[in-house]
């Protein structure tokens, strides 16, 4: 997406997300940023730090603690012609806004035949791994992918986070932008007892300065392989890598990045090549996005499959506090699934 080789800076995911908003606030005077604690303080995860000081309180400000209010107001602003990029403090707290998102933002365009649109981005930290218990750990992506009219994306690294957030802000439809909070500070490999490796040691922590986009709807093959395709996104991308490395199985790992629109071509091409597929996500398994992926792969690749598709996901329980690492679908569970699809003939 660049003309020349760009200048880059090392960033973690928080800085990349902040930088994307910085770029867009600078580039487009219609961009506004608001949410709980995002103004002076810069957000509880610091994703908007310094933006109010730079762009003023008219464009970056604190919102009352009302998620339905935040999204509802953003819809009104969007209808006026602004491009709001709002933060919901945790994905677990988006539910008061679910009516505004699923019944309003998602359908403004459809029901007005394009007279009114909702060009908003709703950012929210998602996923577990920080001992946050049941209200700081959930992964509600399918509650959005199930709604027509929404786009739902989830980057797994600083490079993608910045490029995808810029693409999301420039998008004319509402985008749910999920941020895997366990990856904010480093590419967590799934071994919680090991020290955190910072993004500065990872190539995807090299982030171009200024404006660039990573288009929504394009998956990324993060590891090539010939034996089995792993479909993953968010935190699970690195867990999948760990599992592949630890089992020595030659897995091809696809970071979906965008769940809707979905890059089905990349998925199909890979599964046709490997003949096996393991799907990994952190959200509860029943009616999870893995069910949709599994159906699509079956429809498109049935005659190429050499083993049943396996899903590894969170158990169908609320996210527990003390048992967090028993709940989390870590490298061991992904490894088991990999071995199981390899053994099936």
């Amino acid at each position, binding site marked *: 997406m660049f003309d020349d080789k760009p200048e880059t800076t090392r960033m973690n995911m928080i800085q990349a997300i902040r930088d994307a908003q910085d770029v867009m606030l600078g580039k487009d005077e219609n961009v506004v940023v608001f949410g709980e604690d995002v103004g*002076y*303080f810069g957000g509880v995860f610091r994703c908007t730090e310094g933006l109010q000081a730079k762009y003023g309180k*008219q464009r970056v400000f604190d919102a009352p*603690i009302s998620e339905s209010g935040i999204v509802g107001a953003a819809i009104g602003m969007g209808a006026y012609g602004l491009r709001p990029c709002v933060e919901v403090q945790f994905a677990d707290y988006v539910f008061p806004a679910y009516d505004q998102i699923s019944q309003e933002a998602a359908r403004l365009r459809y029901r007005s035949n394009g007279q009114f649109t909702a060009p908003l981005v709703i950012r929210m930290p998602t996923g577990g791994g920080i001992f946050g218990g*049941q209200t700081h750990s959930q992964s509600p992506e399918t509650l959005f992918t199930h709604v027509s009219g929404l786009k739902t994306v989830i980057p797994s690294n600083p490079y993608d986070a910045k490029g995808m957030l810029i693409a999301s802000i420039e998008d004319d439809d509402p985008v749910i932008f999920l941020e895997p909070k366990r990856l904010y500070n480093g590419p967590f490999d799934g071994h919680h007892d090991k020290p955190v490796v910072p993004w500065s040691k990872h190539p995807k922590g090299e982030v171009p300065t200024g404006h660039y986009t990573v288009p929504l709807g394009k998956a990324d093959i993060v590891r090539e392989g010939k034996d089995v395709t792993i479909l993953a996104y968010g935190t699970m991308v690195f867990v999948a890598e760990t599992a592949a490395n630890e089992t020595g199985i030659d897995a091809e790992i696809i970071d979906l990045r965008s769940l809707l629109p979905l890059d089905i071509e990349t998925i199909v091409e890979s599964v046709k090549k490997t003949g096996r597929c393991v799907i990994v996500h952190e959200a509860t398994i029943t009616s999870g996005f893995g069910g949709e992926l599994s159906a699509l792969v079956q429809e498109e690749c049935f005659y190429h499959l050499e083993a049943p598709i396996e899903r590894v996901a969170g*158990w169908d329980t609320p996210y527990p*506090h*003390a048992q967090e690492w028993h709940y989390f679908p870590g490298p061991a569970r992904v490894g088991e699934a990999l071995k199981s699809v390899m053994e099936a003939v």
Partner: protein
Amino acid sequence: MTREENDYAPLKLHVPEPPVRPGDTPTFDKFEVPEAGSVRKPPIDTDFDDIRDLGFDIIRVLDDEGKAVGPWAEDISDEQLQAGLRAMMRTRAFDERMLKAQRQGKTSFYIQCTGEEAIATGHQLALRQGDMNFPTYRQQGLLLAQDMDLGRMMNQIYSNEKDELRGRQLPVLYSFKEEGFFTISGNLSTQYIQAVGWAMASAIKGDTKVASAWIGDGATAEGDFHTALVFASVYKPPVILNVVDNQWAISSFHGIAGAESSTFAERAHGYGLPSLRVDGNDWVAVYAASRWAIERARRGHGPTMIEWVTYRAGAHSTSDDPSKYRPKTEHEAWPLGDPIKRMKQHLIARGLWSEERHTQAEAQYADEMREAAIEAESNGTLHDGPGPSAAEMFEQVYKDVPPHLRRQRQKMGI
């Protein structure tokens, strides 16, 4: 629609800003502190229309010398006052111990209520067995005021072997049914309307139990808060609608919740509900106002909102650093002072207490908390020692473990 020449100045968005930020000198000069004893005490069956002024004033009992003055001071026994001080001191000692445990890595998270101890402890002592609180994470005083077994609270904080919630819930999000303490949700404001529903049930069943709903200034912005007021106004159930205005919601001062334009208590009036505004750092005022509203509810005169005016003296939680958004010493400038110091001064003035006894009591409660913590830690801490099993994660999702969860549990190999 008219099309005329536009001579209007461009509009500007109003975004409230606290008077001071880090680096500035703390000030509360816009905050008016009414004289202690100056607010009248109406009979409990007074129509809301006749007590609108109580939603603007601040009920205060303890004056600057520590004397209890005015109509709200009446009829409180020495024993009750001493119990109040004790409950506040133990609450603070409990917080100090658990903050230390969190810093030592024995648990993931903790929330203190420093500076706000009077509110929950005073309110609890005015409730009865069988009443139900729907608390937020900052009302541990409700438990400490009733001499709750400390180990039961600490076991939950440590997610250990004896944790009654089996490790499932974030530290401090307790649930103690017998003690009238509803299971705390992490999602703000959801429980305000639930408290109203619980109180409606008390009325439907012809009981005389009272529900007490709790919310912070910030969370009043959520829809469920306003829904609760509508239901309370329609059905007039026996519920106390507490709003703890501690000036801050994480980094957002209460102006972001609309406090620049109206008091929280005043908002009740729009729904035809009576409200009291009370000095939340004055234990005697807290107890007296709670007793009034609870009696009013139990006698069938309906809901009362109580706005507790206080200040969050500590960090929001162990994940927060308030020096990033407010002056470090702002709590020292808070005009309503510290609730424990004020109560101590009052009891000394009454001849019920002394500096020596206070110092002694501080040491005694610190010891009590240390011993309780050591005992609780022998049942394990979050990362060490015995704890709830992984299998227990699958229990209590439903009454019986359904087949799909049994399969998942087996898959896990347990």
